[in-house]
């Protein structure tokens, strides 16, 4: 298990006394996430690195169940989402991450949310929603803006820092080089070449973050910004990206909720939808 993988359980809940147990499984390009709800409350959450999606779906589910005594057969409804959703073979239904993201975001932040930026490992999406968490429209990144999230990992590896550190490092420099803000391949290449100059690694990291944030901001502008604005997905945890985005868009996102990892909010949305489907069934 890599350091980004984890599983946590809410010990205060007793699944044995529950009437309804459902799950949402989000198989993303870089990470797979699960949220298990017990009578509508988050009970277990887990995350593993995505490899072969079918196996990752099983792995992340088992990670959530481990040490709880709960078994998969007791989960009454599962919704699969994410780019690997067709590979969540044990799901009763699959729903796009767009719809799940809107549902999850409004549940976490409340009915004032209208614009959700889901900045994930492989792609970024802007989702518009109603106060009830119903998605009304979306804009997906164009191909040239693919892979920004994962490129942060590749970058961190190159400079031998942790993924969780580079955002803070990127906040440090006042001066920074201007890198290509329309293509991550160009930006990465230019960043590497900067070592020929007097620019420090910290400044390069800042420059890279600013360029990628600008890239993401044009997506949000194209889609249209309506407050309140929230950010979910892995990049929501990168303070330099968030900071630069807010400055460019001139809008602050709603503060992150300490009890919620922004990476699992889509899975949470999927679990809530599983609840709704299960209710309609019964």
């Amino acid at each position, binding site marked *: 298990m890599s350091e980004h993988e984890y599983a946590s359980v809410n010990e205060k809940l007793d699944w044995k006394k529950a009437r309804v147990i459902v799950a949402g499984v989000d*198989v993303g*390009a*870089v990470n797979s996430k699960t949220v298990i709800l017990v009578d509508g409350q988050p009970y277990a959450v887990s995350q593993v*690195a*995505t*490899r*072969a*999606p*079918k196996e990752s779906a099983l792995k992340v589910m088992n990670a959530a169940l481990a040490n709880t005594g709960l078994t998969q057969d007791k989960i009454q409804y599962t919704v699969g989402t*994410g*780019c*690997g*959703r*067709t*590979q969540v073979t044990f799901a009763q239904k699959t729903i796009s991450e767009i719809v799940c993201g809107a549902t999850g975001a409004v549940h976490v932040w409340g009915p004032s949310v209208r614009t959700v930026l889901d900045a994930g490992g*492989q*792609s970024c999406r802007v989702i518009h929603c109603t106060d009830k968490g119903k998605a009304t429209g979306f804009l997906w990144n164009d*191909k*040239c803006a*693919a*892979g920004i999230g*994962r490129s942060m*990992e*590749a970058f961190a590896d*190159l*400079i*031998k820092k942790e993924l969780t550190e580079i955002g803070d490092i990127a906040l440090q420099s006042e001066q920074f080089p201007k890198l290509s803000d329309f*293509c*991550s*391949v*160009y930006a*990465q*290449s230019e960043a*590497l*070449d900067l*070592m*020929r100059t007097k620019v420090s*690694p910290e400044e*390069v990291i800042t420059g890279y973050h600013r360029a990628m944030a600008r890239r993401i901001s044009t997506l949000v502008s194209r889609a249209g910004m309506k407050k309140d604005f929230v950010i979910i997905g892995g990049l929501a945890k990168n303070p330099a990206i968030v900071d630069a985005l807010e400055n460019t868009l001139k809008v602050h996102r709603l503060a992150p909720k300490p009890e919620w990892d922004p990476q699992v909010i889509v899975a949470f949305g999927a679990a809530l939808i599983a609840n709704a489907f299960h209710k309609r069934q019964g």
Partner: protein
Amino acid sequence: MNKEKIFAGIDAGHVRTKAVLVRGKEILGYGSAATGFDAVNAAQEALTRALEAAKVSRDDVAGIVSTGIFRDVVKALPIAVQRTVPEYMADAKGALFLNKNSRTVIDIGANVHKAVHYDKDGNLLDVIQNDKCADGVGIFYTTMAKALGVSEEGLSELALASTKQLSVAIHCAASAESEAIGLLCQGEEAADVADASLRFIVERVAAMASTMPLEQEVVVAGGLAKCKALMKHLPVLLKQDVTLLNLPEYVGAIGAAISYEGEK
């Protein structure tokens, strides 16, 4: 020409820094280190490893030549490089050193790839480098290995097990990666996705190299030359035989080391 003198060559690449010690026609030792964001430190480390492998002390080294994208950066102390040579020259000379019959070397680096055509004495006849959109094919290899949960050697093994020909987008590493993950998410086998990813690299490299007449023998430099699966596709796409070299990732460093003798 003093055959007893030991020379060091440092190839300071975008992602990896390589060092080699040469005496006459003999390679005494080699070593490498991650360039990270500190080329000078990486050169130090690589050189130290090469010295340890060769059981040679720093004082026995008569001269150091650097090449690679950061060849000027590593001129700084404490490396004390006496000369720098451009990559194409180092590639040509290094390839010739390892294979007297070679006349074309295709260097597949982490960020940049190029092809060099040279004569029997290592003089440059032609050189071509990738366009910017095709940057990063080496880094792409590493990223795909990670995405598929295998080591760099493992990616080759995985690709060799492929039974179905898939295609990924050819525009650039970012779109190739996007589609490769997409294929996995559709339920395609990791082995087939791995092979498709390698074919993307070979397509880009071969397309670039083919704009030049490829004189035999054609050899490949860079770490990816050790990837069996990749090297299986290359001759097919080039429509040319490709001869394997020993120590392909040290071609540039070797070429640099032996370039010292050319100094006036």
